[in-house]
């Protein structure tokens, strides 16, 4: 056995299989929990042996330290019970049924509601619920939700106007401050005050409109009760979505599932990041990656072209290459520290003193923001781009170079027309790898401008449209924050899995396309 070493060979084989299992296991785990988040499970009506009842989704079953089998139920109704989840012993359960009348409402605050409907009032219609008018009841709610969406659009418009007014007001204030510092004439200041008055008036008008619209929403009333009979009043403002979980057909569940995934990708977070969507984080990540690419691509390509085409090849250049390579292995937090000290406190501080004195002591550029975060990541990933670009520049055969030069082309013309276009796939590979890295890095971002909840997006409708000094949200940081700094981590866990799944999918897609492009490149150059 020892001579042919089959034990050892099988050992290596097992380690290989183990590695594959580890990878697939991890991805499978994330996929399982990540996809499962949005699936609406049946809601159980549990009768306990002491004759009380509980409603909830059965989440897990575990054996606790007393060796009892316990079941975790998501009961929702945090405003009623104080918690979303409850553990009960399996031995306490008398029976479980799936009552088709159970109503599930997703709300704007206090999380999910599970219970029974009592009455509904919308415009001039009022229905008290009983088994027979079920369809009429829910149809009315559905039509009211349609009304809600049109009112919601109006409210959006009003909010935007209010935002504009606020913005103009703060600009006015700034102007006033500047003028009073320079001690200019009274005339201008009175004019500004007039403007301010006008703005305040229109503000009042918009505010009134907003109030009226919200009143309309609030005039619709849904009364519900939980399993123990306690009632609650909900209005259209509170109701995001409702369904009868135990009555949903497979098709119904699938369409609910898809609509929740859509909400996940396109909506803002609710309930301190435990519900809703991650759109701002997606947007922030993409915007940051874009700015980073604009910085890293020219930097990396120019440096690579310089090293490969213009610098005198020898020990110094080889040394520089080794340094550039090694930079890729330096911990990302070190780049974050550099970004903090040099970009933010150093350059940002100077920008503030030179251009934004009026805002001081509140920092504008002297604090974290999307610009500094992107630049920090650009520095972090520039070695990747340089290495990939050099690799592809090298692959362009000497024969072609000489051929172009022999035709009387200048060095620049050869670069521009032959070498760089041929290298483009390789450069692209480098860029994609850089992007993939930037999407997943969190540590340097934590200290250069990422936040848990950004008050406004870095890209909006107000001049200068792109606000480079604003803080932003990021998918990777979202995972860290929701997972570890959430007040309600049990409830947050499914969202974290889904976000992690999204992130993994993005990264795998990016990496695979980089590998595919690279392989295509190798084939093409064999000719």
């Amino acid at each position: 056995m020892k001579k042919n070493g089959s034990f050892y060979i099988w050992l290596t084989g097992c380690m290989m299989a183990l590695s594959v299992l580890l990878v697939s296991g991890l991805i499978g785990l994330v996929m399982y929990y990540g996809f499962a988040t949005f699936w609406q499970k049946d809601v159980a009506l549990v009768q306990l042996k002491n004759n009380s009842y509980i409603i909830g989704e059965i989440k897990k079953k575990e054996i606790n330290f007393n060796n009892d089998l316990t079941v975790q139920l998501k009961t929702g109704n945090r405003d009623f019970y104080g918690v979303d989840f409850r553990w009960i012993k399996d031995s306490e359960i008398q029976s479980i049924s799936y009552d088709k009348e159970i109503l599930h409402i997703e709300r704007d605050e206090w999380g999910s509601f599970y219970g029974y409907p009592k009455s509904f009032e919308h415009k001039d219609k009022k229905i008290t619920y009983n088994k027979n008018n079920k369809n009429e009841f829910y149809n009315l709610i559905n039509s009211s939700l349609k009304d809600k969406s049109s009112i919601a659009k109006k409210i959006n418009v009003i909010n935007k106007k209010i935002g504009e007014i606020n913005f103009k007001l703060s600009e006015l204030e700034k102007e006033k401050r500047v003028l009073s510092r320079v001690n200019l004439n009274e005339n201008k200041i009175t004019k500004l005050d007039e403007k301010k008055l006008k703005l305040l008036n229109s503000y009042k008008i918009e505010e009134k409109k907003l109030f009226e619209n919200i009143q309309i929403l609030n005039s619709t009333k849904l009364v519900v009760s939980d399993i123990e009979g306690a009632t609650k009043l909900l209005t259209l403002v509170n109701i995001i979505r409702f369904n009868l979980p135990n009555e949903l057909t497979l098709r119904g569940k699938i369409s609910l599932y898809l609509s929740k995934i859509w909400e996940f990708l396109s909506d803002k977070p609710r309930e301190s990041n435990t519900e809703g969507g991650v759109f701002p984080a997606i947007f922030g990540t993409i915007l940051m990656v874009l700015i980073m690419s604009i910085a890293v691509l020219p930097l990396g390509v120019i440096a690579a072209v310089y090293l490969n085409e213009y610098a005198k090849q020898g020990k110094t250049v080889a040394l520089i290459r080794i340094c550039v390579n090694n930079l890729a292995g330096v911990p990302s937090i070190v780049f974050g520290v550099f970004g903090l000290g040099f970009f933010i406190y150093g350059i940002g501080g100077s920008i503030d003193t030179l251009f934004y004195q009026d805002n001081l002591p509140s920092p504008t550029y002297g604090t974290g923001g999307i610009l500094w975060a992107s630049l920090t990541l650009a520095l972090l990933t520039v070695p990747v781009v340089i290495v990939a670009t050099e690799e592809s520049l090298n692959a362009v055969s000497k024969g072609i170079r000489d051929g172009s030069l022999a035709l009387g082309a200048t060095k620049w013309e050869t670069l521009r027309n032959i070498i760089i276009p041929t290298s483009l796939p390789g450069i692209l590979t480098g860029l994609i790898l850089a992007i993939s890295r930037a999407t997943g890095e969190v540590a340097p971002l934590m200290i250069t401008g990422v936040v848990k909840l950004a008050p406004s997006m870095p890209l909006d409708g107000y001049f200068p449209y792109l606000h480079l000094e604003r803080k932003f949200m990021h998918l990777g940081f979202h995972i860290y924050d929701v997972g570890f700094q959430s007040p309600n981590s049990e409830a947050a866990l499914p969202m974290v899995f889904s976000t992690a799944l999204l992130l993994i999918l993005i990264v795998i897609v990016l990496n695979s396309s980089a590998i595919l492009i690279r392989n295509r490149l190798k084939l093409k150059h064999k000719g």
Partner: protein
Amino acid sequence: MNEKKNLSLNENTAFNKRKIKDKAAEYVFKLGGFFIILSIILIIFFIGKEALPLIKKYSLISKDNEKIEDIELSKTVEFFGDEYNNVLSIIQSNGEIVFYDINFKKLISKAKLNLIDNEEITSVVSKENGKKYIFGTSTGRVFIGTILYKTSYTDELDRITEPKITFSESYQISDSPVKHIDFISNDEAQTFVAIDLRKRIRVLKIASSNEEDELFSSNQDENAVAKLYDITSDLGNSIPTDIGIYYNGEIIFVSSNKGRIHYWDIANEIDYLDSRRIINAPITKIEMLNGRQAIVAGGEDGSLSVLFYSQNNIVKVRPLIGHSNKIVKLYKANLKKMITSIDESGNVLIHSTTSSKELLSFKINDGFLKTAFATKDRALLTLDKNKINRFNFDIKHPETTFETIFSKVWYEGFDRPEYIWQSSSGSDEFEPKLSLIPLIFGTLKGAFYAIIFAIPIAILAAICVSQFMHPKLKGVIKPIIEVMAALPSVVLGFLAGLWLAPKIDKLLLPIACFPILLIILTIYMPKIWERVKHFVNFKKEGMNYLIIGAPLIIIVFILSLFIGNSLESIFFNSDFNAWMYESFQIQYDQRNALIIGIAMGFAVIPIIFTISEDALSNVPEHLISGSLALGATKWQTALKIVFPSASPGIFSAVMIGIGRAVGETMIVLMAAGNTPIMDFSIFNGFRTLSANIAVEIPEAPVGGTLYRTLFLSSFILFCFTFIINSIAEVIRIRLKKKYAEL
């Protein structure tokens, strides 16, 4: 075609444009490339530069002086400066308090203490950060003076400070002039401690009522209990030299000419506790440090000793070196742990009391009468015949030296030197403990466990993939394993901290069984394969490991869960962790090095795998063929030819893996428990350099000691990973050359 071409210099403008473009491009690339590379170098220099001030040497910034008019300075008992160094309070022996404005160079006002004829002020101390002056007189009386500074601004925005002092009633503490006085006030009482001309020690305790004003009431006797004690006898033959009071007002210290410090408990009555010999010469001065847990004693021999008082014992912690002459003055710093000492020849030294480093030394002019230490720790003031001299300095980072960062330090409140990282706490008087050793330990511990998890799996898998696998299968398996490298570490960390840690907490024993059962499985694998291989037809070599191996591994895993759980319930009362704690005192933290080892292993395995696999695959074909042609088996060839050939590459791979493990931040942040302890146990947590930076730097004040120490840790991380990667790279290049030659 073929007209005659003109070879002379072409005047065609289009042609010149091309030349210009070419030149321009050249400049852009040369400048750009140079600039990029420069900025990469800039990073390390910037980080180093920010860390450098920690060990910078300090010197006097400036010296200046102002003439003081209209005041008879030779009659001065003491003088003090206010917070902004605008107003001097000059205490004259005749009871006059002269307030002098330094900026406007004029007298502001004078106040007078109500003294009897011929009574003089013989000692004054400033307490409560300059809010109270305590006076002792030649007739043995003591007074409290409370000062309020009223600030206002002139039209030109200059600051005007108007001090107002109100005096308390006097108390008789002795019948002989008061030479040294000290005072403390707390909820229970106001306590004066005095040494008089006849070397007697008197303690006067006045129990407080609620209103401080009652102290100023006219009739002394109306007050609640005022008790006077004489404790001179407790000293025996020794002569008292100076006084100190513990921060809580319950212990008083008196130094003696025999080099001892005696201490009493004055919480209720006065109980003599004990005395300790500190030095072999008379102690001339003692000073309680800011925070009041530490004492500095200065001696006639020029010695300075830092002492800690704890549990009724005084321990000499460290000496401060530098003086050879008698210490005449000690000043504590208000904001930092520094002590300023002046000897009788006018040498001034400032030491850090935590690190015992001498921070600054200078000499003050001869003929100085009195000295004072500016409240914001930025200047020493001296008074001579007619002027006030200012010696200005700015000591930014007294706490750190090479020793405090890298070796054990004895901090206040501890009984011996330790390595500690604790950057702040609730109180203002906290002593920052900035040793990097616990963090470096944590970093190495994390990397260690990650590597021992990753190395066997990664290298053995690399051997399998490069030597025993069909190229097509390899083309599928290799990318799958390499995908692990792309997984963001934040996801790994989250899974480790939120999913894996709770599971392993409950399943420790089963998980421990798994490797053992796996090895046993592997021993029987060849035999199983012998039986099974007739039923299956794997065209590509290597499929068998995957198709047969993977399910068996899963089965073994489930089996080990089952066996482990049964073992646990049979032998360990269903709680292995508790059993470990009770029997061996081994504490199990949910987030610990085992979890990190597995999680970081995920991050490190693909790196070691890829590079090792490359090195193994690139061993020249003819070597392998040569070995096989001699009749060696595949395994023998792999072990004896391929592996040794590729070993520099594998070594390089491990180095890069270590580099990655050392720098990992997110996984540690989320799954390591994040406490900076130094413990080798695999079952508890730790904090690494990188996680520490991420956690601490957002709150660190820019330019402060903590900020710079974090930059120092970044510098260390950078250098460490850079060096490891360079070594790995050099080895890799050498290996390439070697292969090319073969």
